[in-house]
Protein backbone atom coordinates (compact mmCIF):
# COMPACT_ATOMS: atom_id res chain seq x y z
CA UNK A 1 0.00 0.00 0.00
CA UNK A 2 2.61 2.48 1.11
CA UNK A 3 4.86 1.37 -1.71
CA UNK A 4 2.14 1.86 -4.34
CA UNK A 5 1.53 5.37 -3.06
CA UNK A 6 5.21 6.19 -3.24
CA UNK A 7 5.56 5.11 -6.83
CA UNK A 8 2.54 7.20 -7.91
CA UNK A 9 4.17 10.15 -6.17
CA UNK A 10 7.48 9.42 -7.90
CA UNK A 11 5.87 9.16 -11.31
CA UNK A 12 4.10 12.47 -10.82
CA UNK A 13 7.39 13.99 -9.64
CA UNK A 14 9.18 12.83 -12.75
CA UNK A 15 6.41 14.19 -14.98
CA UNK A 16 6.71 17.65 -13.41
CA UNK A 17 10.52 17.56 -13.47
CA UNK A 18 10.70 16.41 -17.09
CA UNK A 19 8.17 19.07 -18.06
CA UNK A 20 10.38 21.82 -16.63
CA UNK A 21 13.43 20.26 -18.25
CA UNK A 22 11.62 20.50 -21.60
CA UNK A 23 10.86 24.18 -21.06
CA UNK A 24 14.55 24.90 -20.47
CA UNK A 25 15.84 22.88 -23.43
CA UNK A 26 13.14 23.30 -26.04
CA UNK A 27 13.58 27.05 -26.78
CA UNK A 28 17.27 26.47 -27.48
CA UNK A 29 16.55 23.47 -29.71
CA UNK A 30 13.93 25.51 -31.55
CA UNK A 31 16.48 28.25 -32.25
CA UNK A 32 19.23 25.81 -33.31
CA UNK A 33 16.79 23.92 -35.53
CA UNK A 34 15.57 27.07 -37.27
CA UNK A 35 19.07 28.44 -37.72
CA UNK A 36 19.56 25.82 -40.45
CA UNK A 37 16.39 26.77 -42.32
CA UNK A 38 15.62 29.55 -44.77
CA UNK A 39 13.27 32.30 -43.62
CA UNK A 40 10.53 31.06 -45.94
CA UNK A 41 10.86 27.57 -44.49
CA UNK A 42 10.65 29.02 -40.96
CA UNK A 43 7.52 30.94 -41.88
CA UNK A 44 5.94 27.79 -43.28
CA UNK A 45 6.40 25.88 -40.03
CA UNK A 46 8.93 26.81 -37.38
CA UNK A 47 8.45 23.53 -35.53
CA UNK A 48 9.42 21.20 -38.40
CA UNK A 49 12.91 19.85 -38.92
CA UNK A 50 14.94 21.45 -41.74
CA UNK A 51 14.52 19.75 -45.15
CA UNK A 52 18.26 19.98 -45.58
CA UNK A 53 20.91 21.35 -43.22
CA UNK A 54 21.88 24.66 -44.79
CA UNK A 55 24.69 26.86 -43.48
CA UNK A 56 23.52 29.84 -45.51
CA UNK A 57 22.34 31.75 -42.42
CA UNK A 58 25.73 31.35 -40.81
CA UNK A 59 27.53 32.54 -43.95
CA UNK A 60 25.67 35.86 -43.80
CA UNK A 61 26.88 36.63 -40.28
CA UNK A 62 30.25 37.94 -41.46
CA UNK A 63 28.63 40.79 -43.33
CA UNK A 64 25.06 41.91 -42.99
CA UNK A 65 24.08 45.57 -42.94
CA UNK A 66 27.03 47.08 -41.15
CA UNK A 67 27.28 44.21 -38.70
CA UNK A 68 30.03 41.61 -38.61
CA UNK A 69 29.18 39.09 -35.93
CA UNK A 70 32.59 37.41 -36.19
CA UNK A 71 34.32 40.72 -35.56
CA UNK A 72 32.05 41.02 -32.50
CA UNK A 73 33.31 37.65 -31.36
CA UNK A 74 36.92 38.85 -31.50
CA UNK A 75 36.01 42.07 -29.66
CA UNK A 76 34.25 40.06 -26.98
CA UNK A 77 37.30 37.91 -26.39
CA UNK A 78 39.61 40.93 -26.29
CA UNK A 79 37.35 42.66 -23.76
CA UNK A 80 36.35 39.72 -21.59
CA UNK A 81 39.82 38.16 -21.69
CA UNK A 82 41.42 41.40 -20.50
CA UNK A 83 38.79 41.85 -17.80
CA UNK A 84 39.40 38.31 -16.50
CA UNK A 85 43.18 38.81 -16.39
CA UNK A 86 42.96 42.21 -14.71
CA UNK A 87 40.39 41.09 -12.15
CA UNK A 88 42.43 37.99 -11.28
CA UNK A 89 45.64 39.95 -10.88
CA UNK A 90 44.20 42.73 -8.74
CA UNK A 91 41.83 40.59 -6.69
CA UNK A 92 44.34 37.89 -5.83
CA UNK A 93 46.89 40.43 -4.61
CA UNK A 94 44.27 42.25 -2.54
CA UNK A 95 42.82 38.98 -1.22
CA UNK A 96 46.29 37.84 -0.16
CA UNK A 97 46.66 40.97 1.96
CA UNK A 98 43.15 40.70 3.40
CA UNK A 99 43.60 37.05 4.37
CA UNK A 100 47.21 37.06 5.58
CA UNK A 101 48.33 40.48 6.82
CA UNK A 102 48.13 41.91 10.27
CA UNK A 103 46.25 45.06 9.37
CA UNK A 104 42.78 46.33 10.12
CA UNK A 105 40.78 44.79 7.29
CA UNK A 106 37.27 45.67 8.44
CA UNK A 107 37.05 49.06 6.73
CA UNK A 108 38.69 47.80 3.53
CA UNK A 109 36.34 44.83 3.36
CA UNK A 110 33.25 46.98 3.79
CA UNK A 111 34.66 49.38 1.17
CA UNK A 112 34.53 46.49 -1.30
CA UNK A 113 31.30 44.86 -0.13
CA UNK A 114 29.40 48.15 -0.33
CA UNK A 115 30.81 48.69 -3.82
CA UNK A 116 29.29 45.35 -4.80
CA UNK A 117 25.81 46.72 -4.23
CA UNK A 118 26.23 49.67 -6.59
CA UNK A 119 24.21 49.06 -9.77
CA UNK A 120 25.78 49.87 -13.13
CA UNK A 121 22.84 52.22 -13.86
CA UNK A 122 24.06 54.61 -11.20
CA UNK A 123 27.62 55.06 -12.39
CA UNK A 124 27.65 55.04 -16.20
CA UNK A 125 27.01 58.71 -16.93
CA UNK A 126 29.87 60.13 -14.81
CA UNK A 127 32.15 57.29 -15.93
CA UNK A 128 31.43 58.19 -19.55
CA UNK A 129 32.27 61.86 -18.90
CA UNK A 130 35.47 60.84 -17.13
CA UNK A 131 36.59 58.69 -20.08
CA UNK A 132 35.90 61.46 -22.58
CA UNK A 133 37.92 63.87 -20.47
CA UNK A 134 40.97 61.62 -20.32
CA UNK A 135 40.60 60.73 -24.00
CA UNK A 136 39.67 57.06 -23.88
CA UNK A 137 35.95 57.50 -24.60
CA UNK A 138 34.50 54.81 -26.89
CA UNK A 139 37.52 52.53 -26.56
CA UNK A 140 37.76 48.91 -25.43
CA UNK A 141 39.95 50.14 -22.58
CA UNK A 142 37.13 52.22 -21.08
CA UNK A 143 34.81 49.22 -20.98
CA UNK A 144 37.54 46.90 -19.73
CA UNK A 145 38.44 49.01 -16.72
CA UNK A 146 34.79 49.67 -15.80
CA UNK A 147 33.88 46.00 -15.95
CA UNK A 148 37.03 45.22 -13.98
CA UNK A 149 36.06 47.70 -11.26
CA UNK A 150 32.54 46.30 -11.03
CA UNK A 151 33.81 42.70 -10.80
CA UNK A 152 36.61 43.33 -8.32
CA UNK A 153 34.51 43.43 -5.13
CA UNK A 154 32.93 40.06 -5.89
CA UNK A 155 36.28 38.51 -6.82
CA UNK A 156 37.94 39.83 -3.67
CA UNK A 157 35.11 38.55 -1.50
CA UNK A 158 35.27 35.04 -2.99
CA UNK A 159 39.07 34.80 -3.17
CA UNK A 160 39.83 36.25 0.26
CA UNK A 161 37.41 33.89 1.96
CA UNK A 162 38.93 31.05 -0.06
CA UNK A 163 42.48 32.02 0.94
CA UNK A 164 41.50 32.38 4.59
CA UNK A 165 40.57 28.69 4.65
CA UNK A 166 43.96 27.57 3.27
CA UNK A 167 46.20 25.87 5.87
CA UNK A 168 48.95 28.11 7.21
CA UNK A 169 51.51 25.38 8.08
CA UNK A 170 53.09 25.34 4.62
CA UNK A 171 53.83 29.05 4.72
CA UNK A 172 55.19 28.86 8.22
CA UNK A 173 57.68 26.15 7.35
CA UNK A 174 58.60 27.98 4.14
CA UNK A 175 59.22 31.12 6.17
CA UNK A 176 61.46 29.22 8.58
CA UNK A 177 63.37 27.91 5.55
CA UNK A 178 64.02 31.52 4.60
CA UNK A 179 61.48 32.01 1.79
CA UNK A 180 60.42 35.62 1.26
CA UNK A 181 56.90 36.96 0.87
CA UNK A 182 56.84 36.89 -2.94
CA UNK A 183 58.05 33.29 -3.05
CA UNK A 184 55.32 32.30 -0.61
CA UNK A 185 52.75 34.17 -2.68
CA UNK A 186 53.70 32.64 -6.03
CA UNK A 187 54.83 29.19 -4.91
CA UNK A 188 52.29 28.47 -2.18
CA UNK A 189 49.26 30.77 -2.01
CA UNK A 190 48.45 31.11 -5.72
CA UNK A 191 48.86 27.41 -6.60
CA UNK A 192 46.68 26.40 -3.64
CA UNK A 193 44.06 28.96 -4.63
CA UNK A 194 43.60 27.60 -8.15
CA UNK A 195 40.07 26.19 -7.61
CA UNK A 196 38.92 29.57 -6.28
CA UNK A 197 40.71 31.40 -9.08
CA UNK A 198 39.06 29.22 -11.75
CA UNK A 199 35.63 29.85 -10.26
CA UNK A 200 36.21 33.59 -10.24
CA UNK A 201 37.65 33.52 -13.77
CA UNK A 202 34.64 31.71 -15.25
CA UNK A 203 32.18 33.88 -13.45
CA UNK A 204 33.89 37.12 -14.48
CA UNK A 205 34.20 35.90 -18.07
CA UNK A 206 30.51 35.01 -18.31
CA UNK A 207 29.42 38.22 -16.66
CA UNK A 208 31.60 40.35 -18.94
CA UNK A 209 30.72 38.39 -22.09
CA UNK A 210 27.00 38.60 -21.29
CA UNK A 211 26.95 42.28 -20.30
CA UNK A 212 24.77 44.40 -22.55
CA UNK A 213 24.11 47.64 -20.69
CA UNK A 214 27.63 48.94 -20.21
CA UNK A 215 28.97 47.54 -23.48
CA UNK A 216 26.24 49.35 -25.35
CA UNK A 217 26.88 52.66 -23.62
CA UNK A 218 30.66 52.68 -23.58
CA UNK A 219 31.28 51.50 -27.14
CA UNK A 220 29.33 53.36 -29.81
CA UNK A 221 31.04 52.08 -32.96
CA UNK A 222 29.90 48.84 -34.62
CA UNK A 223 33.35 47.53 -35.49
CA UNK A 224 34.46 47.69 -31.85
CA UNK A 225 31.31 46.36 -30.19
CA UNK A 226 31.22 42.96 -28.48
CA UNK A 227 28.93 40.24 -29.79
CA UNK A 228 26.25 40.77 -27.16
CA UNK A 229 25.58 44.33 -28.36
CA UNK A 230 25.49 43.22 -32.00
CA UNK A 231 23.01 40.52 -31.03
CA UNK A 232 20.74 43.14 -29.47
CA UNK A 233 20.76 44.99 -32.82
CA UNK A 234 20.01 42.12 -35.17
CA UNK A 235 16.24 42.30 -34.87
CA UNK A 236 16.23 45.89 -36.09
CA UNK A 237 18.93 45.45 -38.73
CA UNK A 238 18.11 41.95 -40.06
CA UNK A 239 14.44 42.95 -40.33
CA UNK A 240 12.57 39.85 -41.41
CA UNK A 241 15.62 37.66 -41.96
CA UNK A 242 14.64 35.27 -39.18
CA UNK A 243 17.05 32.54 -40.23
CA UNK A 244 20.02 34.87 -39.82
CA UNK A 245 18.74 36.03 -36.43
CA UNK A 246 18.53 32.43 -35.23
CA UNK A 247 22.09 31.79 -36.47
CA UNK A 248 23.37 34.95 -34.74
CA UNK A 249 21.76 33.75 -31.53
CA UNK A 250 23.36 30.33 -31.85
CA UNK A 251 26.90 31.59 -32.39
CA UNK A 252 26.57 34.05 -29.50
CA UNK A 253 25.66 31.34 -27.02
CA UNK A 254 28.10 28.69 -28.31
CA UNK A 255 31.08 29.83 -26.16
CA UNK A 256 28.83 29.86 -23.10
CA UNK A 257 27.52 26.36 -23.88
CA UNK A 258 31.10 25.09 -24.24
CA UNK A 259 32.26 26.69 -20.98
CA UNK A 260 29.17 25.47 -19.19
CA UNK A 261 29.52 21.89 -20.40
CA UNK A 262 33.24 21.66 -19.64
CA UNK A 263 33.31 23.46 -16.31
CA UNK A 264 29.81 22.98 -14.99
CA UNK A 265 30.81 22.34 -11.38
CA UNK A 266 32.85 25.54 -11.27
CA UNK A 267 30.13 27.53 -13.04
CA UNK A 268 27.45 26.43 -10.61
CA UNK A 269 29.70 27.09 -7.64
CA UNK A 270 30.81 30.46 -9.04
CA UNK A 271 27.38 31.75 -9.91
CA UNK A 272 26.01 30.63 -6.56
CA UNK A 273 28.81 32.51 -4.83
CA UNK A 274 28.17 35.42 -7.17
CA UNK A 275 24.59 35.49 -6.04
CA UNK A 276 25.33 38.28 -3.64
CA UNK A 277 26.15 40.38 -6.65
CA UNK A 278 22.69 39.67 -8.09
Amino acid sequence: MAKGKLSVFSILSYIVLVFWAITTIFPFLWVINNSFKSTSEILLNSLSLPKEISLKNYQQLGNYGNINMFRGFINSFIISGSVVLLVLLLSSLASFVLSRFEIKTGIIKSFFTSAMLVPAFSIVIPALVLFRKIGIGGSHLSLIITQTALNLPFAILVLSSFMTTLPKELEESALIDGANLLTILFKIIFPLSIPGIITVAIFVFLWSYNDLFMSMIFIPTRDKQPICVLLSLVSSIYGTNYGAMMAALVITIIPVIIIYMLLQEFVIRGLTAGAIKG
Partner: protein
Amino acid sequence: MVFKNKKYAIIFLLPALILTGILIYYPLFATIYYSFYNWRDFSNFRSFIGLENYKRLIEDIAVHKALLNTMIMLIAVIIFQIGIALILALLVHSISKGYKFFRTVYFFPVAISGTAIGLMFYLAYGYDYGFLNSILTSLGKEKIVWITENSALIMVLIPIIWQYVGFYFVIFLSALSKIPQDFYDSALIDGASKFHRAIYISIPLIWDVISVAISLAIVGTFKVFDIVYVITGGGPMNASQVLGTYLYNVAFTGQNQGYASTIGTLIIILGVILSIFANRVLKRDRITY
Protein backbone atom coordinates in the same frame (compact mmCIF):
# COMPACT_ATOMS: atom_id res chain seq x y z
CA MET B 1 50.64 32.94 9.75
CA VAL B 2 50.40 36.65 9.57
CA PHE B 3 52.60 39.11 7.68
CA LYS B 4 53.44 42.48 9.12
CA ASN B 5 55.16 44.21 6.23
CA LYS B 6 52.98 47.30 5.61
CA LYS B 7 54.81 48.16 2.39
CA TYR B 8 53.59 45.06 0.59
CA ALA B 9 50.12 45.40 2.04
CA ILE B 10 49.82 48.87 0.51
CA ILE B 11 51.35 47.94 -2.84
CA PHE B 12 49.05 44.94 -3.25
CA LEU B 13 45.87 46.66 -2.12
CA LEU B 14 46.29 50.03 -3.76
CA PRO B 15 45.40 49.16 -7.38
CA ALA B 16 42.11 47.55 -6.36
CA LEU B 17 41.28 50.41 -3.98
CA ILE B 18 42.05 53.10 -6.54
CA LEU B 19 40.07 51.43 -9.32
CA THR B 20 37.05 50.87 -7.07
CA GLY B 21 37.28 54.42 -5.77
CA ILE B 22 37.55 56.08 -9.20
CA LEU B 23 35.07 53.92 -11.08
CA ILE B 24 32.48 53.08 -8.44
CA TYR B 25 32.51 55.57 -5.57
CA TYR B 26 33.37 58.71 -7.51
CA PRO B 27 30.69 58.14 -10.21
CA LEU B 28 28.16 57.18 -7.54
CA PHE B 29 28.48 60.57 -5.86
CA ALA B 30 28.80 62.38 -9.20
CA THR B 31 25.45 60.91 -10.27
CA ILE B 32 23.81 62.34 -7.15
CA TYR B 33 25.54 65.68 -7.82
CA TYR B 34 24.38 65.81 -11.47
CA SER B 35 20.81 65.10 -10.40
CA PHE B 36 20.51 68.75 -9.29
CA TYR B 37 21.51 70.12 -12.70
CA ASN B 38 19.89 70.81 -16.02
CA TRP B 39 22.26 69.01 -18.35
CA ARG B 40 21.69 67.80 -21.91
CA ASP B 41 23.60 66.24 -24.83
CA PHE B 42 26.66 65.62 -22.66
CA SER B 43 27.51 69.31 -23.20
CA ASN B 44 30.08 71.16 -21.14
CA PHE B 45 27.41 73.43 -19.73
CA ARG B 46 25.23 72.48 -16.83
CA SER B 47 23.05 74.78 -14.83
CA PHE B 48 22.03 74.25 -11.24
CA ILE B 49 18.26 73.85 -10.93
CA GLY B 50 17.91 72.57 -7.38
CA LEU B 51 15.08 70.11 -6.99
CA GLU B 52 13.50 70.64 -10.44
CA ASN B 53 14.50 67.17 -11.65
CA TYR B 54 13.08 65.63 -8.52
CA LYS B 55 9.80 67.46 -9.04
CA ARG B 56 9.70 66.05 -12.55
CA LEU B 57 10.56 62.58 -11.22
CA ILE B 58 7.63 62.63 -8.80
CA GLU B 59 5.22 63.71 -11.53
CA ASP B 60 6.60 61.47 -14.28
CA ILE B 61 4.05 58.87 -15.42
CA ALA B 62 6.81 56.66 -16.89
CA VAL B 63 8.53 56.56 -13.49
CA HIS B 64 5.25 55.64 -11.82
CA LYS B 65 4.80 52.90 -14.38
CA ALA B 66 8.38 51.65 -13.92
CA LEU B 67 8.01 51.53 -10.14
CA LEU B 68 4.64 49.80 -10.38
CA ASN B 69 6.09 47.27 -12.84
CA THR B 70 9.03 46.65 -10.52
CA MET B 71 6.64 45.98 -7.63
CA ILE B 72 4.61 43.58 -9.76
CA MET B 73 7.87 41.92 -10.84
CA LEU B 74 8.97 41.58 -7.20
CA ILE B 75 5.78 39.81 -6.25
CA ALA B 76 5.74 37.63 -9.38
CA VAL B 77 9.40 36.70 -8.96
CA ILE B 78 8.95 35.74 -5.30
CA ILE B 79 5.83 33.70 -5.95
CA PHE B 80 6.79 32.04 -9.23
CA GLN B 81 10.58 32.01 -9.44
CA ILE B 82 11.20 31.06 -5.81
CA GLY B 83 8.02 28.95 -5.68
CA ILE B 84 8.78 26.90 -8.80
CA ALA B 85 12.43 26.52 -7.76
CA LEU B 86 11.39 25.28 -4.33
CA ILE B 87 8.88 22.76 -5.69
CA LEU B 88 11.40 21.45 -8.22
CA ALA B 89 14.11 21.17 -5.56
CA LEU B 90 11.79 19.28 -3.18
CA LEU B 91 10.81 16.92 -6.00
CA VAL B 92 14.40 16.26 -7.09
CA HIS B 93 15.36 15.76 -3.45
CA SER B 94 12.63 13.14 -3.08
CA ILE B 95 13.55 11.05 -6.12
CA SER B 96 16.49 8.70 -6.40
CA LYS B 97 17.70 9.10 -9.98
CA GLY B 98 18.47 12.02 -12.27
CA TYR B 99 19.77 14.53 -9.72
CA LYS B 100 22.73 15.56 -11.90
CA PHE B 101 20.73 15.66 -15.11
CA PHE B 102 18.07 17.99 -13.73
CA ARG B 103 20.64 20.24 -12.09
CA THR B 104 22.59 20.59 -15.35
CA VAL B 105 19.52 21.27 -17.46
CA TYR B 106 17.76 23.64 -15.07
CA PHE B 107 20.83 25.76 -14.47
CA PHE B 108 21.73 26.10 -18.14
CA PRO B 109 19.65 29.27 -18.90
CA VAL B 110 21.29 31.08 -15.97
CA ALA B 111 24.65 31.05 -17.77
CA ILE B 112 23.19 32.54 -20.98
CA SER B 113 23.01 36.32 -21.40
CA GLY B 114 19.77 38.21 -20.91
CA THR B 115 20.27 39.55 -24.45
CA ALA B 116 20.22 36.06 -25.98
CA ILE B 117 17.31 34.96 -23.78
CA GLY B 118 15.48 38.16 -24.70
CA LEU B 119 16.02 37.70 -28.45
CA MET B 120 15.01 34.06 -28.17
CA PHE B 121 11.69 34.96 -26.56
CA TYR B 122 11.22 37.88 -28.93
CA LEU B 123 11.44 35.37 -31.78
CA ALA B 124 9.24 32.86 -29.93
CA TYR B 125 6.51 35.51 -29.60
CA GLY B 126 6.73 36.41 -33.31
CA TYR B 127 3.44 36.52 -35.19
CA ASP B 128 4.25 34.66 -38.41
CA TYR B 129 6.93 32.28 -37.24
CA GLY B 130 7.10 32.28 -33.41
CA PHE B 131 6.77 28.91 -31.80
CA LEU B 132 3.78 29.95 -29.70
CA ASN B 133 1.81 30.70 -32.86
CA SER B 134 3.26 27.61 -34.57
CA ILE B 135 1.78 25.53 -31.75
CA LEU B 136 -1.55 27.35 -32.03
CA THR B 137 -1.64 26.79 -35.80
CA SER B 138 -0.85 23.11 -35.43
CA LEU B 139 -3.73 22.82 -32.96
CA GLY B 140 -5.97 24.44 -35.58
CA LYS B 141 -6.35 27.74 -33.71
CA GLU B 142 -5.97 31.37 -34.82
CA LYS B 143 -2.63 33.17 -34.44
CA ILE B 144 -2.34 35.77 -31.66
CA VAL B 145 -0.41 39.05 -31.40
CA TRP B 146 1.50 38.27 -28.22
CA ILE B 147 3.00 41.62 -27.29
CA THR B 148 0.36 44.30 -26.73
CA GLU B 149 0.03 47.11 -24.23
CA ASN B 150 -1.94 44.80 -21.94
CA SER B 151 0.32 41.78 -22.23
CA ALA B 152 3.81 43.33 -22.56
CA LEU B 153 4.65 43.14 -18.87
CA ILE B 154 3.66 39.47 -18.65
CA MET B 155 5.57 38.67 -21.83
CA VAL B 156 8.81 40.10 -20.40
CA LEU B 157 8.14 38.58 -16.98
CA ILE B 158 7.97 35.04 -18.33
CA PRO B 159 11.62 34.88 -19.47
CA ILE B 160 12.78 36.89 -16.42
CA ILE B 161 11.21 34.33 -14.09
CA TRP B 162 12.06 31.34 -16.25
CA GLN B 163 15.77 32.17 -16.62
CA TYR B 164 16.63 32.21 -12.92
CA VAL B 165 14.48 29.34 -11.61
CA GLY B 166 17.50 27.05 -12.05
CA PHE B 167 19.65 29.35 -9.97
CA TYR B 168 17.42 29.21 -6.89
CA PHE B 169 16.81 25.52 -7.57
CA VAL B 170 20.54 24.84 -7.16
CA ILE B 171 20.69 26.87 -3.94
CA PHE B 172 17.69 25.04 -2.48
CA LEU B 173 18.90 21.65 -3.59
CA SER B 174 22.29 22.07 -1.92
CA ALA B 175 20.57 23.25 1.28
CA LEU B 176 18.24 20.23 1.20
CA SER B 177 21.12 17.82 0.69
CA LYS B 178 22.70 19.07 3.93
CA ILE B 179 19.72 18.02 6.06
CA PRO B 180 20.72 14.85 7.94
CA GLN B 181 18.93 11.69 6.78
CA ASP B 182 18.00 10.78 10.42
CA PHE B 183 15.34 13.50 10.43
CA TYR B 184 13.55 11.81 7.54
CA ASP B 185 14.10 8.32 8.89
CA SER B 186 12.47 9.05 12.22
CA ALA B 187 9.59 10.84 10.48
CA LEU B 188 9.14 7.80 8.24
CA ILE B 189 8.87 5.57 11.33
CA ASP B 190 6.19 7.93 12.63
CA GLY B 191 4.36 7.36 9.35
CA ALA B 192 4.78 10.81 7.75
CA SER B 193 4.11 10.93 3.99
CA LYS B 194 6.56 12.53 1.56
CA PHE B 195 4.35 15.56 1.38
CA HIS B 196 4.26 15.95 5.14
CA ARG B 197 7.99 15.46 5.38
CA ALA B 198 8.50 18.26 2.85
CA ILE B 199 6.16 20.64 4.68
CA TYR B 200 7.21 19.85 8.24
CA ILE B 201 10.89 18.98 7.87
CA SER B 202 12.44 20.22 4.62
CA ILE B 203 10.91 23.67 4.33
CA PRO B 204 11.41 24.76 7.97
CA LEU B 205 14.99 23.50 7.98
CA ILE B 206 15.96 25.45 4.86
CA TRP B 207 13.87 28.49 5.73
CA ASP B 208 16.96 30.66 6.25
CA VAL B 209 18.16 29.76 2.74
CA ILE B 210 14.72 30.54 1.32
CA SER B 211 14.76 33.99 2.92
CA VAL B 212 18.24 34.65 1.52
CA ALA B 213 16.93 33.64 -1.90
CA ILE B 214 14.00 36.01 -1.56
CA SER B 215 16.25 38.94 -0.72
CA LEU B 216 18.56 38.06 -3.63
CA ALA B 217 15.55 37.96 -5.94
CA ILE B 218 14.41 41.37 -4.71
CA VAL B 219 17.83 42.96 -5.24
CA GLY B 220 18.08 41.25 -8.64
CA THR B 221 14.74 42.65 -9.79
CA PHE B 222 16.07 46.19 -9.55
CA LYS B 223 18.86 45.29 -11.96
CA VAL B 224 16.58 43.97 -14.72
CA PHE B 225 17.53 45.46 -18.06
CA ASP B 226 18.63 43.19 -20.94
CA ILE B 227 15.52 41.05 -21.35
CA VAL B 228 13.15 44.01 -21.25
CA TYR B 229 15.38 46.10 -23.52
CA VAL B 230 15.56 43.39 -26.20
CA ILE B 231 11.92 42.24 -26.14
CA THR B 232 9.99 45.52 -25.80
CA GLY B 233 12.46 48.33 -25.00
CA GLY B 234 10.04 49.24 -22.19
CA GLY B 235 7.08 49.76 -24.52
CA PRO B 236 4.46 49.84 -25.84
CA MET B 237 3.44 53.06 -24.07
CA ASN B 238 5.74 52.28 -21.08
CA ALA B 239 3.69 49.11 -20.47
CA SER B 240 6.81 47.10 -19.63
CA GLN B 241 9.05 49.99 -18.53
CA VAL B 242 11.52 49.37 -15.69
CA LEU B 243 13.86 51.93 -14.10
CA GLY B 244 16.91 50.65 -15.99
CA THR B 245 15.32 50.86 -19.43
CA TYR B 246 13.82 54.24 -18.62
CA LEU B 247 17.17 55.62 -17.45
CA TYR B 248 18.70 54.37 -20.69
CA ASN B 249 15.96 56.00 -22.77
CA VAL B 250 16.24 59.33 -20.97
CA ALA B 251 20.05 59.47 -20.95
CA PHE B 252 20.87 58.13 -24.42
CA THR B 253 17.77 58.45 -26.59
CA GLY B 254 16.43 61.62 -24.96
CA GLN B 255 19.96 62.92 -24.25
CA ASN B 256 18.95 64.38 -20.88
CA GLN B 257 21.79 63.44 -18.54
CA GLY B 258 20.62 65.64 -15.67
CA TYR B 259 17.24 63.96 -15.39
CA ALA B 260 18.76 60.52 -16.05
CA SER B 261 21.06 61.14 -13.08
CA THR B 262 17.98 61.79 -10.95
CA ILE B 263 16.59 58.40 -12.01
CA GLY B 264 20.03 56.94 -11.22
CA THR B 265 19.82 58.50 -7.76
CA LEU B 266 16.38 56.98 -7.25
CA ILE B 267 17.89 53.58 -8.10
CA ILE B 268 20.68 54.20 -5.57
CA ILE B 269 18.18 55.11 -2.84
CA LEU B 270 16.04 52.06 -3.54
CA GLY B 271 19.20 49.94 -3.62
CA VAL B 272 20.33 51.21 -0.21
CA ILE B 273 16.92 50.54 1.34
CA LEU B 274 16.86 47.07 -0.18
CA SER B 275 20.38 46.18 0.84
CA ILE B 276 19.68 47.18 4.44
CA PHE B 277 16.66 44.90 4.27
CA ALA B 278 18.64 42.14 2.56
CA ASN B 279 21.52 42.43 5.05
CA ARG B 280 19.20 41.96 7.96
CA VAL B 281 17.94 38.77 6.44
CA LEU B 282 21.39 37.62 5.32
CA LYS B 283 22.99 38.20 8.69
CA ARG B 284 20.62 35.85 10.48
CA ASP B 285 22.33 32.84 11.99
CA ARG B 286 22.43 29.77 9.84
CA ILE B 287 21.02 26.53 11.17
CA THR B 288 23.81 24.08 11.93
CA TYR B 289 23.37 20.41 12.57
